[in-house]
């Protein structure tokens, strides 16, 4: 080719390139991409500017919810064909994202805890519950008072998701950025994937939406599959938690293991797909209450479901989301006064109690038009104005009636409610109390929920830094495993039991047996009404069949010629069962009437007990020639002390653990116990110089209860405080004012903090007793006032009549 030809060709290429640049520049500058691209191009390229415009398109005014027959896309933005081999789970980011901007949604209240600067009124914290170490630790990324930042406890997003992912709606800590997710040494994000914001957790109208399935998938570390499984879109098998840390979703099924380390996979419900591989989502806008209640249920502990009260708004057919509204940004209206000023969203003023029912704020300033959703205008007849200025509406209208004091409730997130299956997920702890009336920063009193924290900590300067439960458990060694050891013994002895027969331990009046979860169940052996006390009964190991308790080793004479052969068979079975106990201090032995039985090469061997075992009887361990009881006195003492209570620690255990934590190896080479403490029931427990456990105050408010406001359930008017008159609260012995509650916690102790209702409300106890007394005379006072007003009014009336009469000349002046 000639030089001229090459030059001409280069010129042609340059012109073509210039034309192309000009074309695309024009295309991008002249309105929607759809004007240039083929129909549907905007849908095919959701990340383009045109796509973003589509997502931000204002509502067209139609009040219906569009049918969501849409193609599922995976986390690589690839179309999911349900009949493919080993398809990926769907991704909300790429399935919902084309129409609902995912990044905008991610900024919503349910997902922004780690990044938000404006956190508003305190809400319910996440409570890290670890019964073994007696930890009840309120956590929150939102830096609410009384809560601990997970970062202070060195909890990374992976740890947080593992602890609380069961009730997280995906996103937030369950979907960290790559810069956070992958450097973590303990994290397995590459195996589990991230749990994207789960739109369907709230918006799925289908009855297949299963929050229990979500929790199970999170527990199995199947994070990227959890939404698919929970929504019932497909069936998910396998467990990422069992896979090697190098496994990646691109590796596909684990060909080496089809039984244990099975890789997660999804099998879609193909019946819900059309021929174009579009899936029909039955979408709820706004979300259904049941989806909210999956994570936001609160119920009194002692209530039966059939008789449990319902929020009056719900009873009227109002859905949660009709007041707790949001736009695409999912900045949920929380509904407290002051929210509008804090967030800048003036519409929030309409959704407070006062805004909706009165249309005004606490000062009586008219803000909005009341009556939204048909909210009735409250009469509040005869209630002095001070109540409206000093109390939140919820004091009289929300929560359980405080006629008997505080009510213990369980909440979804604190007590792991709403997760059903073979295993028991819900817990009795932590003990959440309501309604606890407290004064807020603005000087107004409102109802709160309250939890007493409990945790191990070390002091650093003037601050208290909690220790992770794992750290404590490692340092504590066997001190915290008394129940485990006794349960392991009973489980082993069960092997020697016949059909429908269970091994039991009787100690200090309590009968222990193993439950289905491997824990210990305790029942009082001697009922107090029968004249016994729990400490009366001696310790013994036995079996229980049909309610009849028999000794573990029957009493027989080994030297007798006509001894029952079944007795020695039972002894052999017992010894064989005890031999299976892991970590036993020595070989098992049974002593019956100065005869010691042992297992020797698989056979029962009997011999005369040596003189030093003269006092021994029953089953035990041979340790260095000595006969040691099956369970140590410490174990028996500890489990018996806690039996029948919710407590998981004794003072003896706390003292031992504090010593263990203070050991140089536990403290990184530094000894000393002065800066270690355990907090429970509002008190801090430390070891003094003599090694005795002492309780006292914790630095700052570390031992103080954490509280957060409650708003629901709202009671009907007739169940509100004040409906029966002033004496609903104002009496000399009112539960509202004079309830005193003691701190609760995992530690079995008498040293607990007490709080009176008046101290929490920061009102005068003496004044309210005197004020309450005055209500006994109030009817007389009203009568007296009425008489004086009428009598004086009559004098005034006569005066006016006389003056008018004299001025008019109708009444002559008397001489």
């Amino acid at each position: 080719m000639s030089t001229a030809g090459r030059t001409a060709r280069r010129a042609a290429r340059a012109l073509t390139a210039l034309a192309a640049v000009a074309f695309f520049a024009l295309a991008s500058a002249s309105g929607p991409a759809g004007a240039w691209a083929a129909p549907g191009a905007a849908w095919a390229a959701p990340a383009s500017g045109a796509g973003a415009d589509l997502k931000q398109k204002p509502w067209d005014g139609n009040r219906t919810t569009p049918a969501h027959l849409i193609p599922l896309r995976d986390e690589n933005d690839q179309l999911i064909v349900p009949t493919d081999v080993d398809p990926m789970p769907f991704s909300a980011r790429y399935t919902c994202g084309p129409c609902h901007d995912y990044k905008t949604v991610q900024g919503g209240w349910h997902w922004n805890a780690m990044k938000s600067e404006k956190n508003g009124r305190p809400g319910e914290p996440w409570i890290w519950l670890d019964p073994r170490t007696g930890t009840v630790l309120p956590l929150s990324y939102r830096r609410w008072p009384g809560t601990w930042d997970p970062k202070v406890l060195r909890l990374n997003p992976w740890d947080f998701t593992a602890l609380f992912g069961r009730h997280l709606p995906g996103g937030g800590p369950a979907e960290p950025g790559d810069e956070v997710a992958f450097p973590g040494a303990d994290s397995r994000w590459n195996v589990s994937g991230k749990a994207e914001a789960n739109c369907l957790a709230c918006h799925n109208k289908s009855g297949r939406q299963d929050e229990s399935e979500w929790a199970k998938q999170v527990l199995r570390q199947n994070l990227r599959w959890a939404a698919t499984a929970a929504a019932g879109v497909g069936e998910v098998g396998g467990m990422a938690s069992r896979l090697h840390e190098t496994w990646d979703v691109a590796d596909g099924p684990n060909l080496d293991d089809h039984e244990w380390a099975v890789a997660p996979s999804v099998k879609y419900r193909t019946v819900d797909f059309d021929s174009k591989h579009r899936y029909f989502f039955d979408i709820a806008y706004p979300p259904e209450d049941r989806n909210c209640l999956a994570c936001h249920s609160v119920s009194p502990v002692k209530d039966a479901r059939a008789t449990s009260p319902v929020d009056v708004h719900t009873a009227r057919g109002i859905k949660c989301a009709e007041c707790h509204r949001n736009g695409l940004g999912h900045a949920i209206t929380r509904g407290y006064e002051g929210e509008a000023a804090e967030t800048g969203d003036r519409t929030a003023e309409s959704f407070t109690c006062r805004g909706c029912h009165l249309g005004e704020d606490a000062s009586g300033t008219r803000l909005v038009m009341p009556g939204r959703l048909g909210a009735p205008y409250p009469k509040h007849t005869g209630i002095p104005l001070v109540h409206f200025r000093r109390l939140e509406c919820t004091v009289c209208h929300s929560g359980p009636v405080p006629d008997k004091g505080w009510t213990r409730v369980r909440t979804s997130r604190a007590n792991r409610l709403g997760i059903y299956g073979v295993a028991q997920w819900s817990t009795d702890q932590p003990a959440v109390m309501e309604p606890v009336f407290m004064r807020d920063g603005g000087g107004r009193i409102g109802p709160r929920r309250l939890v007493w924290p409990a945790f191990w900590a070390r002091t650093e300067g003037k601050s208290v830094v909690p220790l992770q439960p794992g750290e404590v458990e490692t340092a504590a060694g066997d001190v915290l495993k008394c129940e485990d050891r006794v349960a392991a013994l009973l489980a082993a002895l069960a092997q020697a039991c016949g059909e429908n027969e269970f091994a039991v331990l009787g100690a200090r009046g309590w009968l222990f047996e193993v439950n289905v979860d491997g824990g210990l169940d305790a029942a009082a052996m001697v009922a107090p009404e029968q004249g016994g006390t729990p400490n009366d009964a001696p310790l013994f190991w036995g079996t229980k069949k049909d309610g009849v308790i028999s000794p573990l080793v029957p009493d027989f004479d080994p030297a007798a010629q006509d001894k029952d052969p079944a007795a020695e068979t039972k002894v052999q079975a017992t010894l064989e069962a005890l031999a299976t106990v892991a970590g036993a201090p020595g070989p098992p032995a049974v002593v019956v009437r100065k005869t010691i039985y042992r297992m020797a090469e698989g056979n029962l061997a009997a011999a005369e007990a040596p003189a030093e075992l003269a006092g021994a009887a029953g089953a035990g361990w041979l340790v260095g020639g000595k006969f040691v009881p099956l369970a140590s006195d410490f174990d028996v003492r500890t489990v018996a002390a806690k039996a029948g209570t919710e407590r998981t620690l004794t003072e003896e255990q706390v003292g031992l653990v504090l010593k263990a934590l203070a050991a140089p190896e536990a403290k990184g080479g530094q000894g000393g116990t002065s800066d270690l403490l355990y907090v429970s029931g509002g008190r801090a427990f430390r070891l003094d110089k003599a090694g005795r456990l002492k309780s006292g105050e914790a630095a700052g408010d570390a031992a103080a209860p954490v509280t957060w406001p409650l708003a629901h359930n709202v009671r009907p008017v007739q169940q509100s405080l004040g409906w029966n008159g002033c004496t609903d609260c104002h009496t000399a012995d009112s539960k509202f004012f004079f309830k005193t509650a003691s701190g609760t916690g995992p530690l079995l102790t008498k040293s607990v903090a007490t709080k009176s209702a008046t101290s929490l409300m920061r009102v005068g106890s003496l004044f309210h007793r005197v004020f309450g007394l005055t209500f006994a005379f109030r009817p007389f006072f009203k009568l007296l006032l009425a008489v004086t007003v009428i009598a004086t009014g009559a004098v005034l009336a006569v005066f006016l009549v006389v003056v008018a009469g004299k001025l008019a000349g109708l009444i002559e002046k008397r001489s």
Partner: protein
Amino acid sequence: MFVVVSLLALAATGLGLAFRRFRHHHPSSEGNILYAAVARDYTKWLATRIPGALKKPAPGGWAAWVKSFRVWRLPLFEKWLLACLYGSFAYLAASGFFCVIFVPRGLYGFPLVLHVFAGAIFAICLTLVAYLRARRFTFEPRPLALPGDLESVRRFRIPWGPRDWAKLVFWVFLAAGVSAAAAELLAMLPWFHYQGEVILLDWHRWSALVSLLAAIVFADLELFAPRPEAE
């Protein structure tokens, strides 16, 4: 607004009563039609009086002052009736207005309880006073005789002295006191809604303000006015 109006009204009443004394001490000012000159003289007079008012009383001076009240010389029942009336009203006014003006939260706590009890005592005493002493404050029409010459007619005034003002404010005090008590009674009855309670509270406050102003005027005109010995 109530606080501002209260402060202005109390100040105006005080200054007005002081002006009356000023006119009493400076009769020449009565004929002066130059208001600026009158105001200047009045201000000067006030300035000379204020140091005297702020002077520390002699030991036992307050007690002597209280003992000098005419009420102690009345018959037993009347003495204690009026003492209770004055005492309860003094506490009501002091606690109510002090808290409204100076305490952001208003009246609360034990002062409020005492306020309510004082209110009951005040209402009882006011009723008894109305029945026992109201007759003394009735108006008796007097015949008017117009002067015959034109100059006298120009200077003619309806005869209305301090005693008449005292009678008028007595009835105003009585009416305002009853009004305040009635507002409080109605607020305690389960008849009125939130807005009704707001109105009743305002009603109570304004009635209390009127009664306080009337009481101040009455005290100046009647209680602390020089009386003939026969009285």
